[in-house]
């Protein structure tokens, strides 16, 4: 079997007595688009922090293309090809949009090349995201939805092998969500990346991913085909037992 690009093995994160992430395994291969869902407080974002090196897991390890990076800083993860966005966009507000994208190209992505040559230019990445006209605008002056797109651009600038998206659809209109989702698919298809996509608004995500993992109270309770997962008794209970929308049979929009 092919070596996974990213493999989390028994990853746990504890904050004092609270177990935020509890022995989660997840392996992602090139070209996969994996959704991670779960009710509020399920540990999704904490799990992402561990996957991107922002937070060192209490136990377990994270292997990126065969290298165990557990305990290394976030810059080491970035240089190995892990790029991420944040739940609330964290762009460099004072810098022009184009420098935000150039940032990753200059640092994390400096020694790798994209499968797609066109993505070596910050201008091309902005164009791809439909942000070419705001290239010179300081990122802090962009609308929140454009900042979200720009964050994806920053991550693409880092020439990622694995793209971690943390609730990129939050706060977007329905049309914007559709566009973003299509964009993510295109990125995955054109660059052959692995994409892990966390979303609280489950319905959107289920339509676009080929595989979904469900976190509940820090544990992974399901992992597989979205249609099968949606029927899983444990998943339904996790969602209905708390607040939040129930998981419904997704209307497939596969390409």
């Amino acid at each position, binding site marked *: 079997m092919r070596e996974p690009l990213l493999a989390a093995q028994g990853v746990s994160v504890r904050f004092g007595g609270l177990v935020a992430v509890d022995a989660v395994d997840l392996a992602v291969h090139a070209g996969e688009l994996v959704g991670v869902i779960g009710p509020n407080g399920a540990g999704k974002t904490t799990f992402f922090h561990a996957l*991107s*090196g*922002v937070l060192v897991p209490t136990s377990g390890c994270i292997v990126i293309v065969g290298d165990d990076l557990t305990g290394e*800083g*976030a*810059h080491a*993860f*970035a*240089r190995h090809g892990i*790029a*991420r966005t*944040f739940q609330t966009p*964290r*762009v*460099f*507000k*004072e*810098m022009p949009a184009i*420098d935000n994208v*150039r*940032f*990753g190209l*200059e*640092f*994390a*992505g*400096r020694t790798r090349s994209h499968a797609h040559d066109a993505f070596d230019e910050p201008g091309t990445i902005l164009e791809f995201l439909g942000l070419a006209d705001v290239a010179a605008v300081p990122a802090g002056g962009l609308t929140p939805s454009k900042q979200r797109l720009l964050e994806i651009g*920053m991550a693409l*600038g*880092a020439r990622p092998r694995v793209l971690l998206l943390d609730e990129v659809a939050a706060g977007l209109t329905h049309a914007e969500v559709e566009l973003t989702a299509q964009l993510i698919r295109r990125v995955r298809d054109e660059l052959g990346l692995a994409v892990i996509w966390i979303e609280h608004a489950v319905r959107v995500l289920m339509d676009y991913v080929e595989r979904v993992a469900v976190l509940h109270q820090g544990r992974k309770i399901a992992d597989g085909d979205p249609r099968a997962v949606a029927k899983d008794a444990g998943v339904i209970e996790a969602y209905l037992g708390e607040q939040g929308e129930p998981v419904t049979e997704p209307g497939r929009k596969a390409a």
Partner: protein
Amino acid sequence: MRRFTLRDSIAATVLAALALAAMPWLMSDFALALTLTCLMYAGLAVSWAMFCGATNCLSLATAAFFGMGAYVTAWGIGTLAYGLGVLLGGLAAAAFAALVGAAVLHLRGAYFAVITFGLGELVRHAITYYEKAYAGTVGRVISEPPETVTIYHVVLLVSALAVVTALVVRASRLGLALRGIGSDEERARTLGVETRRAKILAFSLSAFFPGALGAAMAVRWTYIDPLSVFNPFIGFQTVLIAMVGGAHTILGPIASSVLFSVLTEYLRLQFPYLFLVILGLLLILLVLYLPGGLASLLERWRWGKSRA
């Protein structure tokens, strides 16, 4: 309007430095002394802004670096050539900054400011203790100082180098990394910057210049003791000048160091008892009504022109 390239800016700096180099033969002693003060503060403020302006870290360590440089001169004078002492003063401060930077650069905001201030006090007391216990002295007399023209040229050279270094850093990857750190350090890390190393490197680089300037200026005083060369006022003044000028720019701190030195001198002569009061008031007004510094005036004006 064409934007200034790095090469243009460096050429302008070199030309300005050459023009200033002729001043000792054109100026009165008083004007030359004033120009020397301007140059010193320009070098201090530009090198401070090189690190602090980009990263938004408030360092009060300038006095510590300056004093260390001054003591290299005080200990070396007579045995060490003046120029060599200046170089060593800079290197000592840079090495010290790298060492303590590794320990304190993870701190931010008020914590970083307080600890860098404490560093100055630490070095001052360490030197006081050393001098008393082992050298049996409190201060040192500088015998046979070099000529004023020599001092002026050395300070001019160090300050011009500080400006050129700041220009190069701003245009480099290190400069981009520092701006990213200033904006959102964790984000910069997730995009591949080893922020710790970048900060230590830049902090150490920016410490070379106050160290060298301290060593260069020490010979202006005939008598040196820890209290006078580790004067926290030098550190505060540097921060104020850089902030009033606009710490995210290079031209701003230069302009404001000229303004400050001339204004201080003028007020001191005209209103000997009130000058600090007036200076304080002016500062408050500037910070209240021009938080982006003098540089923001120019930016506003350019912006207005581009919109017209």
